[in-house]
C-alpha cells in the first residue's frame, strides 16, 4: 500500500480540541433529567458467610429501590467467563452480580440502593443491614493451593481453577546437554490499573421502544452489549451501548462486571435513568487487578551463553472469581511469549490458576506478556552473571537473526518479521552502554552504586487471527470491522469497530482514509464507540486497533476504490482495465486529462442516472469490511536503563532511559511516541513503586491514590526514543501495534539496572517493587553472609 502525504505525518490529534476545552463526553458527563443514582454495598470481609442482608431500613429512609443478591436471582445472571481455556480441567464458579450466601473478597457487592441524588443513595446504603460470619481468608496463591488451605468453593479443591500446560521441543535433551542450569523464583506482583476515570454506567430505559441506552466506560461496546444481553435477558438489538470518550482503560474496561448489568436492569425495572459511578476506593477494590504470578524458572544453557531450554511453573493468582478473560491471560498470553526474541529450542510451561480472597485479576496493559518478558530478561541477566559474561553478549548469542524470519518458536506462534540485533545495537549505542560499563568500575571504587540494565522483547500483538484465537478457547474471534461511507458531496465517514480511549485513532484512521481516498483530512470523520452507529466490532485492547481495525479500514477503502473504478470507467467511457487510480483521481491510461475525481464519482454513485452509474451496479459508495488477520504481529525492540542507587537511602534514581522500538510502520509517529512514553512510565512504576497489597486477612491496603503509588511528574525520568522499522509482511498497512510496548519492556530494564548496580555485592535478584526497604534488606543479607 502506497505511503502518501499523511501516512507517517505528525498530525495533531483531532480528539484534542474537545478534550482541552472541557467538552469531552465521558460517562459521568452525560446528564439526563430524572436520573436516579445507584450505590453498591460491599463486603468489608475477604471471606464470610452471608447470614442476612436486609434493605428494609434503606427503603424506609426513602430509597427508590434496594435489592440483595437473592432479589436478583432469575433477573440478572452471573458474569460470564469468556476465555474457557481447553485441556486445563477448568472450573468456573458462579460470579454473581451481587453475592449470595458467601462473600469472597473485600469489595464483593451484597446489595444495591437507588435514590434521587447520589448523596441520598449513599445515606440509604449505610442503612443496609448485613450480618456476616467471617471465615478464614486465603490471599496468597502458593498458600491457597496448600492441602489445609481454606476453600473459596466447596467444589474447587485446593482452590485450583485450572492447570494448563504448553510444551515444545525436547526439554529433557536440553537439560542433559546443558553446561549450566540456573533456577530462580520470580514474583511478578499484583498491580492496580488505575485509569484516571473510574468505571461507571448510565442506563436509560425507554418503555415505548423497549430499548435501553447504556453509556458506560467501555473499551469494547459491542462485547459489553452482548454480555449485558446475556446477563439481563434484554435482547441484544434492544441495547445500545455508547462509550465515546473513555478516561483510560489499560485493560480494566474490557471486562464484564456485575454492576453495569445490575444498573441496566434497574433502569428497566424503574423505568427511569440510573447512574452509577465508582468511587476511587471501589475502583481499587472491585475493578480488576493485573499480573500476580509466582514463577519457578529453570534454564539450561551452554558455557557460551547459548540457551538450550526453559522450564516454567507459574502460580497465577486469579482472585475470587474468574473475570471475563482471566484464564487466558496468565496462560496463552504468557506461554506464547516465552521464547522472547531468542532461539530457545525447548520450552515447557505449566500454569496453575488459583482462586483467592482478593479482587478478580484479569488483563492489565501487556497482560501476560510483561510477565513473560520479565521472566526471560531477568533469567538472561542471571545467566550472564553466573557465566561471568556481559548481559549484552548473552543476548547477542541468543537472538533470532534477521534472515531466520518467519521464525517458528517452540511455543506455537510464528514470528512474522524482525531484526532484533539492529534495534539492540542501536539502543546500546544510544545509551552509551560500553562507556557506562567502562566507568562503572571507577564509580564503584568511589562507593557509588551505578548500574545499567537491558531489556529486549518481542510482543504478540494485533489480536488476532480468529481461528488461532478460538483454538485457545476465547469466546469470539478477534477480527475487526469498518464501514467507510463516501457521501454524495465526497465527504467521508468512517465507522470503526475499534474503540480508542486515548490512543488517538480518530486521527490515525482519518490519516489512512484521507491518503487512500485522496480526500482532505478534514473531510474524513471517524465514528467509534456507539453500537447504534458502528458495525459489530471487537474494541480496543491488546495493541490491536491500528493493525486490525486499521486493516479493516484499508480493506474497505480498497473496495470503494474498486467500485469507484467501475463508475469512473462508465463516466469516462473507457474500459475498466484502462482506468488508473491515484488517490482521489481516476484517469484513462495514457490520457491523463481524461479524468474524474472521487468526489464526482461519489455524486454519480448516488445520482445513479444512465450516464452516471453502469447498468446493474448498486447505487451508493460505501463499503463494510471485516478484516481477520492471517497472523498476529510481533513488534520488538530493546530498552536500556541506567540507574544510580543511593548507598545510604537505597533510593533509585534513573539516570538515563533509552528505548528503541520497532512497531512496523508508524502512521502518526507523534501518537506512537506518546504511547511508548506512557507505557514505559507504567513499567518503571511496577519496577520501583506500584504494588497492590493485601494484609493476611485480605484487607486491601492500597485502596486510595494516597496509598497506591501511581507516579507523578516529579517521580519520573525523561525518556529518549528511537526506532527501527520492520514492516509486518502480512498486515495491509505494514503496522504492528505499540500500545503495550512500554509496560512489557520497561520493568525488566529497570530491575536489571538496579541489580547490576548491586551485583558486586553478590546480589543476583530482588523481587519488585525495588523500594528502598527491599534493597536495604537484600544488602543487609549479603553483609551477614560476608
Amino acid at each position, binding site marked *: 500500500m502506497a505511503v502518501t502525504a499523511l501516512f507517517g505525518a505528525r498530525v495533531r490529534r483531532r480528539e484534542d*480540541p474537545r478534550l482541552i476545552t472541557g467538552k469531552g463526553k465521558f460517562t459521568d458527563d452525560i446528564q439526563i433529567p430524572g436520573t436516579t443514582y445507584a450505590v453498591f454495598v460491599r463486603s468489608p470481609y475477604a471471606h464470610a458467610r452471608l447470614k442476612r442482608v436486609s434493605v428494609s431500613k434503606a427503603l424506609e429512609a426513602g430509597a427508590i429501590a434496594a435489592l440483595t443478591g437473592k432479589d436478583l436471582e432469575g433477573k440478572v445472571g452471573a458474569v460470564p467467563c469468556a476465555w474457557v481455556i481447553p485441556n486445563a480441567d477448568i472450573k468456573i464458579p458462579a460470579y454473581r452480580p451481587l453475592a449470595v450466601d458467601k462473600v469472597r473478597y473485600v469489595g464483593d457487592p451484597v446489595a444495591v440502593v437507588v435514590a434521587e441524588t447520589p448523596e441520598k443513595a449513599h445515606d440509604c446504603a449505610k442503612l443496609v443491614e448485613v450480618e456476616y460470619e467471617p471465615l478464614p481468608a486465603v490471599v496468597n496463591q502458593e498458600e491457597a493451593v496448600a492441602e489445609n488451605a481454606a476453600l473459596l468453593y466447596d467444589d474447587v479443591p485446593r482452590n485450583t481453577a485450572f492447570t494448563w500446560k504448553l510444551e515444545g521441543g525436547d526439554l529433557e535433551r536440553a537439560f542433559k546437554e546443558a553446561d549450566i542450569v540456573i533456577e530462580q523464583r520470580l514474583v511478578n506482583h499484583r498491580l492496580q490499573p488505575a485509569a484516571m476515570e473510574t468505571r461507571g454506567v448510565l442506563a436509560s430505559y425507554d418503555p415505548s421502544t423497549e430499548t435501553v441506552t447504556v453509556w458506560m466506560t467501555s473499551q469494547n461496546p459491542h462485547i459489553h452489549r452482548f454480555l449485558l444481553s446475556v446477563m439481563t435477558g434484554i435482547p441484544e438489538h434492544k441495547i445500545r451501548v455508547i462509550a465515546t470518550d473513555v478516561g483510560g482503560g489499560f485493560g480494566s474496561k474490557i471486562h464484564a462486571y456485575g454492576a453495569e448489568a445490575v444498573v441496566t436492569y434497574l433502569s428497566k425495572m424503574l423505568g427511569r435513568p440510573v447512574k452509577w459511578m465508582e468511587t476511587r476506593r471501589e475502583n481499587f477494590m472491585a475493578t480488576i487487578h493485573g499480573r500476580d504470578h509466582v514463577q519457578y524458572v529453570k534454564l539450561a544453557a551452554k558455557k557460551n551463553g547459548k540457551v538450550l531450554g526453559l522450564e516454567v511453573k507459574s502460580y497465577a493468582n486469579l482472585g475470587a472469581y474468574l473475570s471475563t478473560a482471566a484464564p487466558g491471560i496468565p496462560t496463552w498470553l504468557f506461554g506464547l511469549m516465552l521464547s522472547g526474541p531468542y532461539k530457545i529450542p525447548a520450552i515447557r510451561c505449566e500454569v496453575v490458576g488459583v482462586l483467592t480472597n482478593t479482587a478478580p485479576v484479569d488483563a492489565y496493559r501487556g497482560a501476560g506478556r510483561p510477565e513473560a518478558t520479565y521472566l526471560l530478561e531477568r533469567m538472561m541477566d542471571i545467566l550472564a552473571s553466573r557465566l561471568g559474561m556481559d548481559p549484552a553478549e548473552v543476548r547477542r548469542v541468543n537472538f533470532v537473526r534477521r534472515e531466520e524470519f518467519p521464525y517458528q518458536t517452540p511455543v506455537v506462534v510464528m514470528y512474522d518479521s524482525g531484526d532484533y540485533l539492529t534495534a539492540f545495537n542501536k539502543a546500546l549505542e544510544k545509551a552509551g552502554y560500553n562507556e557506562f560499563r567502562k566507568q562503572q568500575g571507577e564509580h564503584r571504587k568511589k562507593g557509588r552504586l551505578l548500574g545499567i540494565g537491558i531489556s529486549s522483547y518481542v510482543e504478540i500483538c494485533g489480536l488476532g487471527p480468529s481461528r488461532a484465537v478460538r483454538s485457545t478457547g476465547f469466546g469470539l474471534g478477534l477480527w475487526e470491522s469498518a464501514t467507510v461511507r463516501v457521501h454524495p458531496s465526497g465527504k467521508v465517514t468512517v465507522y470503526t469497530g475499534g474503540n480508542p480511549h*486515548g490512543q488517538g485513532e480518530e486521527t490515525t484512521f482519518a490519516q489512512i482514509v484521507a491518503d487512500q481516498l485522496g480526500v482532505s483530512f478534514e473531510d474524513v470523520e471517524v465514528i467509534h464507540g456507539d453500537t447504534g452507529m458502528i458495525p459489530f466490532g471487537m474494541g480496543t485492547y491488546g495493541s490491536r486497533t491500528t493493525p486490525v481495525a486499521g486493516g479493516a479500514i484499508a480493506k474497505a477503502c480498497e473496495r470503494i476504490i474498486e467500485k469507484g473504478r467501475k463508475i469512473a470507467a462508465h463516466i469516462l467511457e473507457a474500459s475498466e482495465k484502462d482506468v488508473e487510480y491515484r488517490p482521489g483521481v481516476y484517469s484513462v491510461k495514457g490520457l491523463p486529462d481524461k479524468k474524474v475525481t472521487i468526489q464526482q464519482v461519489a455524486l454519480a454513485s448516488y445520482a445513479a442516472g444512465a450516464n452516471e452509474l453502469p447498468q446493474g451496479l448498486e447505487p451508493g459508495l460505501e463499503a463494510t469490511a471485516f478484516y481477520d488477520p492471517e497472523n498476529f504481529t510481533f513488534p520488538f525492540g530493546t530498552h536500556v536503563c541506567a540507574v544510580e542507587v543511593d548507598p545510604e537511602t537505597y533510593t533509585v534514581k534513573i539516570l538515563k532511559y533509552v528505548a528503541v522500538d520497532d512497531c512496523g510502520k508508524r502512521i502518526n509517529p507523534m501518537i506512537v511516541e506518546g504511547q511508548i512514553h*506512557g507505557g514505559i512510565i507504567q513499567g518503571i512504576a511496577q519496577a520501583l513503586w506500584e504494588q497492590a497489597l493485601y494484609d493476611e486477612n485480605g484487607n486491601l491496603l492500597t485502596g486510595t491514590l494516597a496509598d497506591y503509588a501511581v507516579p507523578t511528574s*516529579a517521580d519520573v525520568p525523561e525518556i529518549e526514543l528511537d526506532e527501527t522499522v520492520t514492516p509486518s509482511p502480512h498486515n495491509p498497512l505494514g503496522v504492528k501495534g505499540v500500545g503495550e510496548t512500554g509496560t512489557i519492556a520497561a520493568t525488566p530494564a529497570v530491575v536489571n539496572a538496579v541489580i547490576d548496580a548491586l551485583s558486586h555485592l553478590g546480589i543476583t535478584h530482588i523481587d519488585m517493587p525495588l523500594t528502598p526497604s527491599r534493597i536495604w534488606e537484600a544488602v543487609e543479607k549479603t553483609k551477614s553472609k560476608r
Partner: protein
Amino acid sequence: MSARVINLIVNGRKVSCAVEPRKLLVNFIRQDLGLTGTHWGCDTGNCGACTVLLNGKSVKSCNVLAVQADGGEIITIEGLSKNGELHPIQQAFWNNHGLQCGFCTPGFIMQAYWLLKQNPNPTKEEVREMLAGNICRCTGYQNIIKAVLDAAEKMR
C-alpha cells in the same frame, strides 16, 4: 440538611444557587452548573482532575465545599478560552500531544495556568515539581511538561 443559597462568579458569570451544605464544589460545578469539563477522579485529593481556580488560586474542588466558595470567583476549564480562541496553554497541550484519554487534562491545564501566573519562566524541574499534585496515567508526563514549557515561552 437544609439548602443554603450561595452567590459566586463562575467564568465571569454571576451564579446564584441553593445547595446542600455538604455538597462538594466539584459536584456543584458539574451537576448544578453543568460544567462537566472539571472531572472527579479520586476521593482523597490526590489526582487533581478537579482542579479549578478559586479566587485566583488553584484548588482541588473535591476538597472544597460549595458553600465555602460563597462570594468567590471561580474559573474552570470552560472559562479559559476567550472568544473561541484557545488559551496558549490549551494550544500548547494540543501542539505537543500533551494528552491521550484527556480525562486528567482540564485539571492539568488549570494547574499549569496557575503555575505560570506564579512563575512565568519555570525550569523543567520546577514544572515537574509544581504539577506533582496532578496524576496522568496515559502520557508519562513527558509531553505535558513539554507543553507547559512551550506555553510559558509563548505567553512571555
